[in-house]
Every structure is written in C-alpha cells, then in structure tokens.
C-alpha cells in the first residue's frame, strides 16, 4: 500500500489522487502532492478553489471519495482526526480555534497532555503537573505569549489567539503541520512574527501552507502548488510558478508579477 508513497524517503506527507464531490460539484479533483522534510509547501488558489476542503481531507475532518493520504509512509486515509493528530499530523484552523474557557497555559498544557500518558486519570490535580506546565510554558515563550500564560484564552487579542494556536501545534511535536491561512486577520507585525516563526521551524517541522497572502507565500515557500477548481495546475519553486504562463493565465496574472 505504501510502495508509491515512500518512493522518496524524505517525503513526510503525501497525497495520492484525492477526489471529493459535493453533490455534482467536484471540489477536489485528483490532487496529488507531497511535503518533504525541511520544506514549506504552499498551496495557493483563488477563492473557492477547494483549499480548505483539501485541508479537511488531509486532517480527517472530511473523508475523500477516492485517493489516499500517507503520513511518514503509512496510509492514514481511514483514521479519525484525533488518531491522525496523535500520529503526528497537526492542523490550524482558518477561523481561530482555541479553548476559550481555559487559560493560554491550559490550552498548551492540554496539547502536551495529549501525547504524554493516559488522560483517563481521575485523580491528581492536572494544574499541579509540573511537567505539563513547564513544557506548555516553553511553547508559549516560543511564540511570545509567556506573559499571557494565565489569561483566559477567550480574552486574548486576535493575534495572540493565532500565536496560541501555534503554541498548541508546537506542543504536539508534530511530524508535519497543516496551516490553513495563518496570516488571515493578522496585523503587519503579527504577520512578520509568524513568517519568522515559520522560517525558524521549518527545518524541524515541515509545513503545508494554504495562504491568501501572496507576499508571505513567496517569501516562505520552498515550493508552491496552484489549485484551481479543485485541480492542481502547477507545482514548482516560487520562481517557476511566477514564470509559469499557465498559472498566470488561470489565476495569478498581475498579483504574481508584482509579488
């Protein structure tokens, strides 16, 4: 089953012929791509190209009609989202998704808890578990949220919530990260910080990045795939994508020329 996926050993995440229909509408059309060690692979495309649907299928929140998803060489197509997460696949959400009633620290600690021992423990105060807290705090520091550790996550600013999502993702120690428009709604400074963070992390955590912000994509991505009407029309280096006449015609045109 994994024979084609592991053709190159450095591939971490690989999609093979994913297909998804919503009624008569084909939203994902034979999509194959891979994410290699140490790279940021960006997927760009106009609104409605099926980017978020693709993320949902990779993370398991939607089942594809056909095709497979491989993580580190093993087929995870049949796994539920939580099993995929435990296998090392982490995703962010386009719309901020945190646990608003918990403090920032508790949010991150829960992610540490998920991969460290059983959570069917009914006794022992979790708030006193030093191992969880110190690791969670380290993750918050990584994204610049250490001072906000005790603040309820629901009261954080939008940018801080985005940063908290990154801390949660880091706390999971993933093999690969799926980022669904992380720059959306981020201010200029927050955006710059996120870009710096991605550049710093990509050596250890390869990423599949879905993003609208072309400027950001062309700065951080090692490879870019262009998704139009659910179909990948080109994959290549940022320069190759910029120069690709088919891409220009189908979608980017002006935007790429200026980026």
């Amino acid at each position, binding site marked *: 089953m994994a024979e084609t996926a592991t053709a190159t050993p450095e591939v971490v995440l690989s999609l093979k012929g994913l297909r998804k229909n919503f009624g008569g509408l084909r939203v994902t059309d034979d999509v194959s791509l891979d994410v290699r060690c140490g790279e940021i692979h960006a997927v760009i495309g106009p609104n409605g190209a099926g980017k978020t649907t693709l993320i949902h299928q990779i*993370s398991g*929140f939607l089942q594809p009609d056909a095709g497979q998803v491989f993580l580190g060489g093993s087929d995870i197509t049949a796994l*539920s*989202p*939580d*099993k995929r*997460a*435990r296998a090392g696949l*982490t*995703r962010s*959400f386009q719309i901020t*998704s*945190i*646990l*608003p*009633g*918990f403090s920032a620290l*508790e949010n991150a*600690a*829960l*992610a540490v*808890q*998920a*991969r460290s021992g*059983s*959570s*069917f*423990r*009914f*006794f*022992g*105060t*979790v*708030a006193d*578990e030093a191992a969880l807290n110190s690791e969670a705090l380290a993750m918050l520091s990584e994204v610049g949220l250490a001072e906000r550790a005790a603040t309820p996550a629901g009261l954080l600013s939008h940018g801080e919530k985005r940063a908290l999502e990154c801390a*949660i993702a880091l706390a*999971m120690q993933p093999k690969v990260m799926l980022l669904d428009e992380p720059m959306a709604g981020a201010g200029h400074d927050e955006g710059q910080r996120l870009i710096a963070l991605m550049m710093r992390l990509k050596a250890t955590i390869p990423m599949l990045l879905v993003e609208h912000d072309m400027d950001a994509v062309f700065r951080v991505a090692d490879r870019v795939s262009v998704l139009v009407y659910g179909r990948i029309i080109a994959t290549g280096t940022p320069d190759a994508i910029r120069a690709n006449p088919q891409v220009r015609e189908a979608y980017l045109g002006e935007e790429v020329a200026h980026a």
Partner: protein
Amino acid sequence: MPRSSRIIPLLLFAALAVVPLLGLFIRDGYILNLVSRVMILAIAALALDLILGFGALVSFGHAAFIGIGAYAMGILASHGHDGFFTGLVVALAASALFALITGAISLRTRGVYFIMITLAFGQMAFYTASSLRAYGGDDGLTVAARSLVMGAKLLKDDRLFYYVVLASLIAAYVLCRAIVASRFGRVLQGAKQNPQRMQAIGFNPYPYQLAAYVISGMIGGLSGFLLANLTEFVSPAYMSWQRSGELIVMVVMGGMGSLHGAIIGAAAFLLLEEWLSGFTEHWKVIFGPMLVLIVMFMRGGILGFVQRLAGGRHG
C-alpha cells in the same frame, strides 16, 4: 478556583452537619426528614452537574438513575437481601450498566437530539418500572425497613441515617471535585468548549464523555438507593420526566459548573417547593414564575448572584 468556591461548600456542609442538633430543641423528625431529602436530591443534582456543567451534556433522563438505584434497593429488600452494602453495590452496578448502554447510544448525538434521546431512555425506564407487577407496578413498592448495616438496624435512627446521607453527599462532592480538576476533567471540559479543537489536538471526546456519563449515572444511582431508604418506598414516579426536568432546574438555578451550586439549587428548589405548598395547593402558579425570574435575573444562578454580591469587581 476563586476563594469563594472553597468557603461556600465548607459553610454548606458545616450548616448541614449541625441541622440534627436542632432536633435537641424541637422534638420533630420533620426537619431531619426534609433536609435528608434535600441532600439526597442534591446528590442527584451533583451527578447531573458533572456532565451538564462540565461537559455540556444536557441529560433529560437523569431521574432514571434515581429510579434504578431505588428499585435496586426495593427489589433486593423484597427478596430478603436487606444489607446496606449489598444494596449499594447492586444499585451502583445497575446504574452503571444502564448508563453505559444508554450513554453509548445517546452520546453519538448532539444538542437537541441528545436531550430527546436521553428523555426517551428515561421514559423507557419509567414504563419498565410501571410494568413490574411483581414489584407494585404503577403503585410502587413499600419496603419493610431501611437497609441493615452488618445485620443491625442502625439506620432506623433518623439522625444516624441523616449523617450517612451527609457523608454520601460529601463523598460525591469530593469525588466530583477531584474528577473535574484531573487530567480527565480537563479533557471533558475541553470537549465542552470546542470539540473540533480537541480532535485536532488528538482527543476523541466520545470515550471521555461516556466515562463521565457512567460516573454521573452511578452517583445518581447512589441518590436513588438513599431515597428508597429514606422513604421506605419505591415508585415509578421517582423517574418521571418531570423529575428529570427538576434536576436540570436545580442545577441551572444553583449555578451550573460549580458543583456546590447544584447542592444550593437542590436546597433552594425543594425548600421553596415545601414552603409554598404550605400556603396553597396552587403553589405551582407561584413557583413557576419564580423560577423564570431567578433564571432571568440571576445569571449564573444563585451562586453567581452571591458571588457578585460578595465581590462586586467580578461583576
């Protein structure tokens, strides 16, 4: 945890502990009986708050567990098995089993569907009890005496029985408090806030919610077992859907998600009911609107109201 959430339960339990001393002055079993009943239903409300307040699981059939606990005691006693511990163990086991089966199915649904399906299971238990002709059917079953402790009729003494109930309430409270603060409790509360995020972190909420549902059901069974001992009577009415609704009202009225709020809610509900019904037989006409007003104007229930009074800055 705010300081008040440590002080209030302590005050509450201390107040409950001195109630029997009143009996030294007033020679009357009435108060003892009433407060025992309050505490027993407070245990059931506590059970509901564990899944409602911390898991957002609105069970509209929780009275079924009271009934199962009560019938376990009644049926065993009618066959001559009148030991306290035997009865308790069977009551807990039966409610755990019922919770496991109904929970496994109910928890596959969400929101209104969960409410409806728990109601349906509750009604199923109600009609099953009504059809038990050998055990009184609709009329219920009179139990000869309270359970025996090591063959002795210790619980015949109302004051001693009162303290057994109080100890059960405290034990249930401490257990729930520990669960809520544990790793398990954190997962349960996370699933209440954002199940999708929990899945993305790597938690499937279902087994955690099911475990919480079973624990809650068992605490409900404990309540029923004690209720049958208090009244020396068992009836399908213990598990009517109205009673399930009352449990929800108690929890909401007292203040969801605090545990001691459920105790306060149960006390407020039952004492208000008792007091109003002393005036007029149409007490429900007054009681209904009062509940509406409490829910409307006391956000966070009675407990939330008290906390706002105590520390205005939390407003």
